C-alpha cells in the first residue's frame, strides 16, 4: 500500500463529510489564529518599546545618588546628596567611553508670563543634554558653556510650555518669563516630540543651566543625577564599570563598602520593560494555546465518532486486504489533513486579524515568522497526537465483527 493511495482515500473520506470536517477544522483555525494574533501583538509592542527607547538613546547611562533601593527601605536625605559637581568633573576628565555627559538637577514650580502661568519643571542641565537625549533647539539658540559658568538667567522652553505661556502665539524668544520669583530670558524653543510610551509629555519641560538651578533656585551643592551617553552602545557595560571605579575613588569607598550611587543604562531599562511585555505575550499565547488544545481535542472527538460510524467501512477495507497499518495510516492522515489545513487557514486568519487590529486599533503589531512556523509544527503534532488514539482504535477492529456492525 503506498502513501499516495492512502492520501486519496483519506481526502475522499473527508470530502464525504465536508461540513463536519470544516467545523472540526474551525477549532484549529481559531486556535492558531489566536496564537498568531497574540504573538503578533506581543512582538509588536515589544518592538515599539524598543524603538522608542533606542530613540531616547539606547546608549544612555544614568547615574543617581544613593545606593540601589531594595524593598521599601527609605534612605536618608544625606544618602541622596552623594553626587557632587566634583564627581561630574572627575568623570568628564577620566572616563574614556563617554560621548556626552550632563549633570541634572530639577526644580518644580510655576512658570509665569504676564497673566499666564503653568506648573512645570526647570531642568538644570549643561549644553550636552541635547546630544544625549537626541533633541534639538527648534527656534532660537541653546545656552552656552559661558551661561553655565555664570549661572545665567536663561531658559529653553518646551512646546507645551510655550503654548501655555504664550497662548496668543507670539514669539517667545527674547521674552522674560518667571520661574517662581526668578526671571529668566527665553533664548530658545525645543523641538516637538509628543508623548512617549509611558504617556509622558516630552514637551512639558524647560531647560536651564544646571548651575542656575543649583545656585539660584534650589541653593544646593549636590547634583540630583548625571546623565551620559556611551560612545558605543555595545560598550555601555564597560563604560558603566569605568564610571563606577571613578566614583568609588572619588567617594573614597573602601572595598567592603557598597556603592553610594546607582548607575542604570537605558539597555537595562529596555530589558526590564521588554521582559514585562514578554511575560504578557507568554500569558496571551498560553490562553491562545489552550484554545488550540481544545481544537485538538475536537479533532480527536470527531475522529472517534468517525471511526465508530465507519466501522463497517473499516471492516470491509480489512476484509478486502487492508492491513491494520493501512487503516491506521488512513485515519492518521485524515486527522493530519484536518489539523494542517486548519493550521494554514488559521495562520491566514491570524494574519487577517493582526492586520485588522493594526487598522482599527492602531496597535503596533508584527507577525514573527517563527510564530508561524511554531503554530504549523504544533498543528501537525496535534493532528498526530489526537489522531493517534482513534486511528489505533480503528486499526484494532476485528474485521469479522466490524463488517457486520450495525
Amino acid at each position, binding site marked *: 500500500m503506498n502513501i499516495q493511495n492512502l492520501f486519496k*482515500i483519506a481526502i475522499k473520506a473527508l470530502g464525504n463529510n465536508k461540513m463536519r470536517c470544516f467545523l472540526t477544522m474551525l477549532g484549529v483555525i481559531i486556535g492558531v489564529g489566536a496564537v498568531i494574533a497574540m504573538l503578533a501583538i506581543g512582538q509588536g509592542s515589544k518592538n515599539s518599546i524598543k524603538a522608542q527607547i533606542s530613540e531616547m538613546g539606547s546608549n544612555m547611562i544614568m547615574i543617581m545618588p544613593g545606593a540601589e533601593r531594595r524593598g521599601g527601605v527609605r534612605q536618608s536625605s544625606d544618602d541622596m546628596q552623594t553626587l557632587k559637581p566634583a564627581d561630574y568633573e572627575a568623570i568628564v576628565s577620566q572616563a574614556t567611553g563617554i560621548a556626552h555627559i550632563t549633570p541634572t538637577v530639577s526644580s518644580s514650580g510655576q512658570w509665569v508670563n504676564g497673566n499666564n502661568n503653568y506648573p512645570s519643571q526647570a531642568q538644570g542641565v549643561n549644553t550636552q543634554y541635547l546630544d544625549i537625549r537626541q533633541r534639538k533647539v527648534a527656534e532660537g539658540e541653546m545656552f552656552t558653556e559661558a551661561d553655565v559658568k555664570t549661572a545665567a538667567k536663561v531658559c529653553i522652553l518646551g512646546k507645551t510650555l510655550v503654548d501655555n505661556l504664550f497662548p496668543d502665539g507670539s514669539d517667545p524668544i527674547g521674552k522674560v518669563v518667571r520661574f517662581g520669583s526668578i526671571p529668566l530670558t527665553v533664548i530658545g524653543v525645543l523641538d516637538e516630540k509628543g508623548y512617549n510610551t509611558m504617556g509622558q509629555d516630552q514637551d512639558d519641560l524647560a531647560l536651564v543651566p544646571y548651575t542656575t538651578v543649583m545656585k539660584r533656585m534650589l541653593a544646593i551643592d549636590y547634583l540630583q543625577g548625571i546623565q551620559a551617553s556611551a560612545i558605543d552602545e555595545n560598550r555601555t557595560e564597560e563604560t558603566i564599570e569605568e564610571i563606577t571605579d571613578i566614583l568609588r575613588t572619588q567617594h573614597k569607598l573602601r572595598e567592603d563598602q557598597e556603592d553610594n550611587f546607582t548607575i542604570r543604562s537605558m539597555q537595562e531599562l529596555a530589558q526590564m520593560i521588554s521582559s514585562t511585555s514578554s511575560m504578557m505575550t507568554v500569558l496571551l499565547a498560553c490562553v491562545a494555546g489552550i484554545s488550540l488544545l481544545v481544537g485538538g481535542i475536537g479533532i480527536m472527538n470527531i475522529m472517534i465518532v468517525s471511526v465508530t460510524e465507519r466501522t463497517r467501512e473499516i471492516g470491509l477495507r480489512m476484509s478486502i486486504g487492508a492491513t491494520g497499518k493501512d487503516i491506521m495510516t488512513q485515519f492518521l492522515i485524515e486527522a493530519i489533513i484536518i489539523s494542517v489545513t486548519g493550521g494554514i487557514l488559521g495562520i491566514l486568519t491570524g494574519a487577517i486579524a493582526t492586520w485588522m487590529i493594526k487598522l482599527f486599533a492602531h496597535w503596533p503589531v508584527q507577525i514573527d515568522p517563527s510564530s508561524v512556523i511554531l503554530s504549523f509544527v504544533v498543528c501537525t503534532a496535534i493532528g498526530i497526537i489526537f489522531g493517534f488514539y482513534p486511528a489505533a482504535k480503528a486499526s484494532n477492529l476485528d474485521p469479522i465483527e466490524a463488517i457486520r456492525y450495525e
Partner: protein
Amino acid sequence: MAKEIIKIENLKRYFKVGDETVKALRGVSFTIYEGEFVTIMGTSGSGKSTLLNTLGCLDTPTSGEYYLDGIAVKGMGKNERARIRNRKIGFIFQNYNLLPKTTALENVELPLLYNSSVSAKERSERAEKCLREVGLGERLFHKSNQMSGGQQQRVAIARALVNNPVIILADEATGNLDTRTSFSILTLFQRLYKEGKTIIFVTHNPEIALYSSRNIMLRDGHIVSDEYNSDIKSAEEVYRNLPEEND
C-alpha cells in the same frame, strides 16, 4: 485432476464465551477443486459463518489444517492474512458493503488500491472491465446510493472479481434481494461458474443448492452431507419465466 483450491482437514474452531466454550466447528474436512460452484448450507448456529470467516482468512482455526491455493494459512499473522485476502479472495456480502457516496468504479478499484503493484491506470482499466462483465458498463460513475439493491450487488461482485481471486466467497449474496433480482444475481454466478471461476456460496436458503454444482450441509459444526449436483438447474430460465413486476 483439477487443482485443489481449498483443502481443510479436521478444522475446529472453539470460542470462549464467559466460562463456556462454544464449539462452532467440530472437525470439518473437505477439498474444493478449481471450477466448482459450492453452496454451503446450514441453519443459523450450524457454524457456516465461522467456516466462511475461516475460509476467508478473517479468522484462524483453533486446530486443523487449511491450505488455500496450496498455501498453509494456519499460523499466518494478521498482515499476511490481509495480503492473502487482497490477492486470492473475492468477498461478496449480504448487505453489499459498498462505500457510500462513492462511484461504482471507485468501489471496484478499492481492493487494487491496497495492492501497490497495480498502477493507477491498470486499476481503472481492470475495474471498468469487471463492471462491464457484470453488466454495469453504463453505470461506471453512478454513486452507490443512486443504485438499486441488485445493481449494488453487481458492483460488489465486480469488486470481488477485480483482483482475479482464486476463490469467490459469497455470504448470503441474494439474502437482501427480491426473488427476481436474486435470480438475476444467481444467473451471474452461474455465468462466472461456466467461465471457470471457483465459487463458495454460503446460504441458509436450500433452493439455491439446486443451481450449484456441489452442496455441503452443515449442522452443529459437522458436515452432514456433501453431495455433487448432477442436474444443475438454470437460474436464467427461472429468471426469464418470472413475471416482471409493474408496481
